[in-house]
């Protein structure tokens, strides 16, 4: 049951990557200032890490994990980097 939940979570995990290339400059205007693309990726990584934490707690997957801080940080990092590669990478 829990593995199925994990399987169901994978598309959700990859959902932000489905957008692939982001059209336009890799720099985002906000209130008259330009924010770099990597900042968006970092923000996404943090959000995904927090979201996964909530999701895993809800699905009891969290109980399986060890070294949770490193695991969630790594998952967030992977998300951010993958998003950068797909959206802004060469």
């Amino acid at each position: 049951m829990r593995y199925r939940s994990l399987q169901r979570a994978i598309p959700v995990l990859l959902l932000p990557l489905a957008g692939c290339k982001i059209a336009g400059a890799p720099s985002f205007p906000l209130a008259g200032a330009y924010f770099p693309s990597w900042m968006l990726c970092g923000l996404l990584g943090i959000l995904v890490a927090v979201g996964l934490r909530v999701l895993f707690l809800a699905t009891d997957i969290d109980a399986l994990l060890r070294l949770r801080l490193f695991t969630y940080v790594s998952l967030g990092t992977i998300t951010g980097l993958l998003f950068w590669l797909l959206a802004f990478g060469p």
Partner: protein
Amino acid sequence: MKKISLSNRNPIGLAVAVLCIAAASALGYYVLGQDESYPSTDSGTVDAELVHIASTVGGRLQALNVHVNQSVKKGDVLYQLDPEPYTLAVQQATAGLALTQAGVEQQQRLVAVEAANADIARNQALRAKTNHDLAARTVERLRPLASKSYIPWQQYDQAQVALHDSGITLDQSHQQATAAQVAVGDLNSSIAARQVAEATLAQARYALRQTTVTAPADGYVTSLRVIPGEVLIPSQVLFTLIANDGWFVTANMREGTLHAIHPGDCATVYSMINRTTPIRGHVESIGWGVLSADSAGLSRALPFVPREMDWVHVAQRFPVRIRLEHANPQLLRLGATATVEIRHGAACD
């Protein structure tokens, strides 16, 4: 499905953690490599060439045919200085040329007169020679007659005086002929004076032409804040023309990524005036030098070396010049922010 015991000792949890950390590290390493191989920056600046419009002559601004932010074509008349002083200078130089031309003609007449005088003096010398010869022959003939007293001694004496006179006259006429020949002048000085006057006239005409200022290239008028009536000194800049025949982006790239940038490389440029329109460009050149705070100082003074113990050194950046190809003019304003992606991005795929 069997319920799995949830224990913190679970080896699956450890495996997942190790896997995640390893994947994140590997991906991080890969992304760093990609970022270095395909550099990009968001601190580019749209750039173009400038011409500071000025006239090499001074005067009062009489007519201004352009207004600020106007687009002009190469050869368009931009403004006109009061041409009157320069017209007068042309008239003065024209008169000066006429004067020297008259001087040349006068000198030609003088030379003709002097040449005629020299001719006359030469003929006079010939006549004096003939007379002298005659006087000498007369003396020769009279000498035997006088010695035998067939003629009065007085007559022979007169012949000798006449010979002496004609000798002096011959010498004088030779000197006169030489002097007259020397006195024949030439036109060199008057022709040189005419050449000076011609050059002066050409200069005056050039200065007159400089009172009309035309656009040296297609472009946009900027920084124009005066109206006709302004008095300009020679070479005073009236406004700046942004040349419209070549637009660039100057992108500062970290030195560690320069190995991945080569002249001719494709570049995707976004002008932040419209951040959704990619502009295609290519790398034209990479700057060969920037002023570094660590090497600043007068070249003749001792090197200026600040005391420091920095452990982290921020990478130097060098300006990479990217020439834009066929960009929408609405996106090109000098100084606009631009992002640049070398060898990737929407315009290079």
